[in-house]
Structures are given as structure tokens and as C-alpha cells.
């Protein structure tokens, strides 16, 4: 493989009627990613090409795109893994296009905000002026930690067939985060999130296609979170949900003596 054929979506809303594809030839380099190819095009062929990227190491979630018809992070996708010299890049589906490959993630953030993705504490004094950390057991952390790895890249929302048909559907990312905070023992806001997820376009519209979990670049399983959220909501509705004590605040560390005596200064 000496050269790659990049077919890139171009679109400038307001000036152009609909998106179209433009082809570029990019020299192949061992280990290059799709993002490397796009940067090569921007620097050497067409500097008007617009795309979003930042960390280049799969952490920030900025460069989500539809690569060869699958939503992926461009920086996290080596060209060799595509097993073809033709790379087709489009903006993320299910999101409005700002320009070329830049999708507007506003719908994702609006829905994400609606499920209150933060720890809601009944003890407002402790929440605003914390005296110490909340105690948390290892199994309590493990119950939600994989869902906390979400980087809000929007790939799960782009892959979801229900979001494609119903733009009002909350979607896998917000619902996954709703479960993540509901299961956190420091949180007491589960009922507020259940109310949001219990809407006609909420959790029950999920058909469990599982495309969200397949698309996630961070190994999060939003489909599992949605199923667990459904179970928690059914139990809550039937008043069978176990009540649990909120996480307690750690006691201040007691005055302690060092295990090894610190030698006196010899130089005065």
C-alpha cells in the first residue's frame, strides 16, 4: 500500500445545498491513523477542510467521525486496521453538521444535562463545604466505574438506530450516565433521574440493538447501563428497590506518631 484514497465529506450549510464527497490521495505511512491522513490533507492539499481534533490519543473524544460507515475516533483508528486503501470519512450521523466533518454535539450535551450528571447530595452544607471525602467501598466503585469512563464523544448516539428514528429519544450516553450516578452511593438524586428517564422518549424506547456498546472507543457498555436502569426503575415503581444508607463522610485523620523516628537536625 503506497497511497491511500481518502473520500471526505464536504458541506458548508447555507452555501451548499447538500453534503458531497471529495477525493484526495494521501501517501501511506506505517502506523498512520485516519486523523493523520486528514491532517495531511489540511496541511498539504486543501486547508479549507474542517474537522475537530485535540488530544490525538483517544482521550478527549473530539474526533468522532463515520469512518467506512462505522462511527469511530479518527485518532484511534489506524488505517491498516481498515484493511483497505479506500478511506471514506463522513461527519457523525444523528447530529447536525456545522461544516465538513464537524458535527454539532449540542443535542448530546442538552440531553446529557437533562439527566443531572453529577452527584446530588441531600446534605447541601457537606456538598458545598466538604469536611472530608465520602467513604466508598471497592465493590461500590466497581458498580459504576466503567460507565464513568465515558468521554462524551457521541459515537454511541451516532450508532444508535433509535436516535436515528426518534430525535427526541434520550439516547445511550445520557441514559448510561443517568445509571452511573443513580448507582453511586454518594448520590441521592436517583428519583429525579428516574423521572427524566421515565418520559415517553426515555429509557423504554431502547430496543437493545447494542450498537452503542459496539461503537464505544472506551469500552463502556451503555446497553448494559440502560438494562440496569430499566431494572432499577421497575423495582422502584413496584417499591422493591432496596433503600441504602448514603455514603458516610470519612473521619478526620487522628493525630499519629511517625513509625520511624525522624532524626534530629545535625546542622544547626
Amino acid at each position, binding site marked *: 500500500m503506497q497511497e491511500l484514497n481518502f473520500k471526505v465529506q464536504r458541506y458548508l450549510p447555507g452555501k451548499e445545498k447538500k453534503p458531497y464527497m471529495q477525493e484526495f490521495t494521501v501517501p501511506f505511512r506505517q502506523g498512520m491513523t485516519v486523523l493523520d491522513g486528514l491532517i495531511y490533507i489540511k496541511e498539504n492539499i486543501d486547508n479549507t477542510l474542517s474537522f475537530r481534533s485535540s488530544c490525538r490519543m483517544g482521550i478527549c473524544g473530539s474526533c468522532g467521525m463515520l469512518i467506512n460507515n462505522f462511527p469511530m475516533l479518527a485518532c484511534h483508528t489506524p488505517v491498516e486496521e481498515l484493511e483497505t486503501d479506500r478511506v471514506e470519512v463522513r461527519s457523525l450521523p444523528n447530529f447536525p453538521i456545522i461544516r465538513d466533518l464537524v458535527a454539532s454535539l449540542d443535542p448530546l450535551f442538552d440531553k446529557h444535562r437533562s439527566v443531572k450528571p453529577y452527584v446530588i447530595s441531600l446534605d447541601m452544607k457537606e456538598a458545598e463545604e466538604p469536611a472530608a471525602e465520602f467513604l466508598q467501598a471497592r465493590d461500590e466503585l466497581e458498580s459504576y466505574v466503567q460507565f464513568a469512563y465515558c468521554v462524551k464523544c457521541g459515537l454511541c448516539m451516532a450508532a444508535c438506530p*433509535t436516535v436515528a*428514528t*426518534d*430525535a*427526541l*429519544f434520550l439516547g445511550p450516553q445520557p441514559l448510561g450516565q443517568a445509571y452511573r450516578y443513580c448507582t453511586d452511593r454518594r448520590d441521592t438524586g436517583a428519583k429525579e433521574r*428516574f423521572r427524566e428517564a*421515565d*418520559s*415517553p*422518549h*426515555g*429509557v*423504554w*424506547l431502547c430496543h437493545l440493538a447494542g450498537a452503542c456498546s459496539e461503537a464505544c472507543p472506551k469500552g463502556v457498555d451503555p446497553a448494559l447501563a440502560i438494562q440496569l436502569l430499566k431494572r432499577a*426503575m*421497575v423495582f*422502584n*415503581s*413496584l417499591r422493591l428497590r432496596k433503600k441504602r444508607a448514603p455514603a458516610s463522610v470519612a473521619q478526620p485523620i487522628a493525630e499519629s506518631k511517625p513509625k520511624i523516628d525522624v532524626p534530629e537536625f545535625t546542622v544547626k
Partner: protein
Amino acid sequence: MKETQLKILQYVSGIGLFFFVGAHLLVSHLSSGEPTTWESVSGRAASSGWLAFYILLLIFGIYHGLHGLRTIILEFSIPNTAVKVLNWAFVIVGMAIFGYAAYIPINAF
């Protein structure tokens, strides 16, 4: 009613339909191997137990079908304000179907 409660009823009616339709098929069509006779139908129609059976089958069937249809319609991005209208439309249609369909076994009883 909240969506979760509606969904729980959907599951309950689904399980109910599995047994009620199964029993209906077994008794009416599969047990004797003979074509359905007037005597067997009128015999069941005169029984209060069978009347309750068919009314329950009707309730489960109507609820399960209409709720499923509502879920499909909701996926057409129906705004929340219009969902209330849709809900009442389904309640009225459901009651009308139930009234018409329940009249037959009740009248035959």
C-alpha cells in the same frame, strides 16, 4: 400513568396472553381434532368461568396491541405535548373496541 408502569402492564399482559391464547387455541381448535361445533361454543358461552376467561383475554389483547402500536408511533418524534392527545386517543379507541367486543360474549351469556 408513568411509562415504567405502562411497560410493566405490557409485560404482564404479554405473559397473560401467552397462557390465555394458548388455552383458547387448545380448547377451541386443537383438543378434539374435529371442526368447532355450535354446541361446544354455546356451552362455553353459558359458563361464567369462560365469560371471565374471554373478558380477560380481551383486556390483555387490547392493552398489549394498543401499547405496542403507541410505542411505534412515539418513535416518529411525537412531541411530549402531543403524547397526551395520543394517550387519550388510545384510551378512547381501546374502550370502544372493548365495549364492542365484550358485547358478544356478555350477550351470549
